[in-house]
Structures are given as C-alpha cells and as structure tokens.
C-alpha cells in the first residue's frame, strides 16, 4: 500500500460519491455542480495515471467548457420543470429497472475482470512526456485530427442553425411556429 494507492482509492471514492449525488439530485443546477466536482477529480486521476496533458484537457473541456455551457443553459432558459421538481419526493419507481440492469451488467463485468489473465498486475507509475505526446498525435493520427476538426465545425454550424432566433428577414417555419 504505497502513497499512490491511497491517493487512487481516495480519488475513486470522491468520483463515485459525487457522481452518485449528481445523478440523483432533483434540481438540475445541483446535479451539474456535483458533476463538475466529479470531473475535476477525474482530472487528478488522469494525472495520477500518467497523462498530464489529458488532465489539463479534462479541466479545460469537461469541467470548464461543458459544465459552464450546461450551467448557462439551465440558468438562462429556465429548463427546470418549475417548482414541482423541488416539492416532489424522490421517487424510486423509474430507478428500479435501470439500477437492476446496470448492477447486473456491472456484476458481469467484475466477474469477467476477475477471470481475466492479468487482473492482479499492479500498474507502474509513468508519465507521458508532453512534447512527445503532441509529436505522436500529429505523426500517427494526423487524419483523425482533421476529421475531428471537421466534426467540431459541423457541430458549431448545427448549433448556430438550431439556435438562431427570430429575425425580420427570417420567415422559416421554425420562426413562425415559435411565435
């Protein structure tokens, strides 16, 4: 039991606890803030597992951009289902089958891991060099990088198209039906 193991189990505990809180909160804002805690802790886990660049990306993209986008959407456009959501008791009925099937799959996964050849092999600490990682990405994966840039561009255009507001020159069907 080295210091790395202790840190790993603490991080795993924090990640699982905050994710459990996130998926069970009735209010959306609480869920998103708990999820941000979970993503920050995942960034620490990435650093522990030897991926410093991905740890920085996790903080910037997941905990930064994605969570801020969720928060702004929830706060500006009133996506909660009113005050009903707060008064309503936490109901177990929709969770029954979901938790049952998830737990069954998780049990099968655990059995599969335990039966596997190298479940007890401890990982050795290592750290991916930043410069080498960047050079590796652009040497081996130059085509996927281009495809991903196209994907991000298409997502940008699609989000702009779907989110366009009512303008005088815009007499499309969405503008008419929204009014």
């Amino acid at each position, binding site marked *: 039991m080295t210091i790395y193991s202790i840190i790993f189990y603490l991080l795993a505990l924090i990640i699982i606890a905050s994710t459990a809180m996130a998926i069970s909160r009735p209010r959306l804002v609480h869920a998103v803030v708990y999820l941000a805690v979970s993503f920050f802790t995942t960034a620490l886990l990435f650093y522990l597992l030897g991926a410093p*660049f991905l740890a920085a990306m996790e903080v910037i993209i997941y905990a930064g951009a994605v969570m801020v986008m969720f928060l702004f959407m929830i706060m500006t456009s009133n996506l909660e289902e009113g005050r009903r959501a707060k008064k309503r008791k936490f109901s177990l009925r929709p969770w029954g089958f979901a938790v049952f099937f998830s737990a069954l799959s998780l049990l099968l996964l655990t059995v599969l891991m335990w039966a596997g050849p190298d479940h007890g092999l401890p990982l050795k600490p290592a750290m991916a060099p930043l410069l080498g990682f960047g050079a590796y990405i652009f040497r081996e994966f130059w085509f996927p990088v281009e495809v991903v840039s196209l994907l991000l561009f298409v997502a940008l255009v699609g989000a702009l198209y779907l989110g366009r507001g009512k303008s005088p020159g815009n007499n499309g069907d969405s503008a008419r039906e929204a009014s």
Partner: protein
Amino acid sequence: MIVPFGHVLILSGILFFMGAACAMARRNLIMILIGVEIMLNAAGIAFVASSLRWGALAGQGFVLFIMAAAASEVALGLALIIYLRRRTGSVNGDDYDAMKG
C-alpha cells in the same frame, strides 16, 4: 506501484453504469445528456488506464478524440433541447412520443 489494472477498470465500469442508469431513469432531457457525458468520461478513464498498462500512447490519443466528440455532442444536444423547448415548451422526455411535434 499504483493499483491493480482491474481496480481501475472496475471504477470505470461503476461510473459507466451510473451514467447508463441516469440516462435510463431520469425524465429530464438535460439529465439524459449528463448521463451520456458520465458514460463518455468513464470510457476515457478506461482508455488512460490501458495506456498506462501497456505503455502505449495510442490510448491517450484516443481520449483526446473522445473529448472532442463529447464537446460537439453537448453543443448540438443543448441546441436541440433549446429548439425543442421553443417549439413545444417541454423538456420532459416522456412528452416526445410523436414523430411530428
């Protein structure tokens, strides 16, 4: 020496099935998107652990692409939710049961 490889995979599996349960059980469209995000993050943890296990950088490279896909998915998903709410005024997944809204 950190921990056995299986423990990291089991942590990733727990997170993945928590996300799946969230996407299955919650009715709000935003919570379904959050469940998908949790699942993608769990897949990223499994990839980073495998990268450390076999000493190959390809796993970390793949996580970069997973993050790009997750970011674009969230942007489009939130835009769709805003659009649907403007059209029908509801963010409850159960209300969308007809092909022509």
